[in-house]
């Protein structure tokens, strides 16, 4: 951890070694540590929203269930799969960089990027559905305020109408959607940033910047990507799944 070990000047410094580090080892360590500390801040960032979610779900279980049931569970599951797959390919990309296999590394990075974009595409479809059903909270979209149609008792079921469970109210459903858009929106923003970082990796990889000795960027961006995946691993059950069983209960 510390650098007490050596002070001997590096004889053949790696071309990617920055002047203020003693050696590549120290540089890599600093990079990884830096990313981990950054991820801690990210956890706290999402933590605030998880707190709000937990609080209001515990206060308004029925409304949250009703609102949650309106989300598309198929698309949600699909997206979970996509993201897990992309995490896997990202891990493989790091692996291939570590052992110095250039082409598989490029391939893995490309697949990861494509999967990330797929996720965003599916998310966009979901958002559009919500837009159609007037479920965007408040006046975020000026021309289309929150104004869902409510399934009346005895009408025939309509997927575009909100089915309110007993005890649910429309304002609280709006609260759910507010939290839903805040959390998934922040998550999507992180995905977009991640996609940007992956593009950067691809370019540098094409220029053959990385080798077994120097691949901090791949590793560090990999950590970030996995973190974004983890956030989704929690968002998925909390937002999509937990309300389901109210239907039967």
């Amino acid at each position: 951890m510390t650098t007490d070990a050596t002070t001997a000047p590096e004889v053949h410094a790696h071309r990617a070694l920055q002047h203020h580090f003693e050696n590549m080892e120290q540089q890599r360590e600093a990079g990884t540590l830096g990313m981990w500390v950054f991820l801690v801040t990210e956890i706290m960032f999402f933590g605030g929203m998880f707190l709000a979610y937990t609080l209001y779900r515990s206060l308004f279980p029925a409304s949250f269930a009703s609102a949650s049931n309106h989300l598309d569970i198929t698309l949600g599951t699909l997206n979970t799969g996509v993201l897990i797959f992309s995490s896997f390919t990202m891990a493989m990309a790091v692996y291939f960089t570590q052992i110095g296999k250039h082409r598989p590394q490029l391939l893995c990075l490309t697949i990861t990027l494509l999967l990330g974009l797929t996720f965003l595409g599916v998310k966009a479809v979901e958002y559009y559905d919500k837009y159609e059903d007037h479920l965007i909270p408040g006046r975020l979209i000026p021309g289309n305020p929150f104004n869902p149609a409510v399934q009346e008792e005895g009408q025939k079921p309509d997927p575009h109408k909100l089915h309110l469970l007993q005890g649910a109210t429309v304002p609280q459903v709006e609260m759910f959607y507010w939290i839903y858009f805040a959390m998934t929106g922040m998550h999507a923003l992180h995905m977009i940033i991640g996609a940007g970082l992956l593009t950067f990796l691809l370019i540098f990889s094409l220029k053959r910047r990385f080798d077994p000795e120097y691949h901090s960027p791949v590793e560090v961006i990999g950590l970030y990507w996995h973190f974004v995946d983890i956030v989704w691993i929690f968002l998925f059950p909390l937002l999509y799944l937990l309300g389901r069983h109210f239907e039967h209960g």
Partner: protein
Amino acid sequence: MSEHIVPVRVYIAVFLVLLAGTALTVAAAFYDFPWQLNTIVALTIATAKATFVVLYFMHVRYSVRLVWVIVASALFWMAIMFALTFSDYRTRKWDGRLGMIYSPGCSVVSRTSIMRRQDGQFKRIVASDVLIGASQKGQAPLISL
């Protein structure tokens, strides 16, 4: 110290575990467990999945202690935030100051209101364009960014 290289089969195994976990949690959501168990099951599976990602994809299993400490501290601080905030919400109903019941404020002309139909039945109508708050005072709310 040189970095640990995780074998490919570990990655594949973890990947499969994650897919299985996803399937499991979706299946569990359609099944009714008693009490709060649905929530607990879903969160347990999610935590397990996250743990796999952290340990293997993110190499924490093979990392120095400092990284463990960092991960643990993030969780610890989240726990502080939750525990102490809920120490307020969970005890509000005990303190005799009218509990913690929040209901929509009245002045806040709400977006939902009700209409009384001819037959005396009530119908919920939604009128999102009713303004909030300031409209009470007869002025359109000026919201500057």
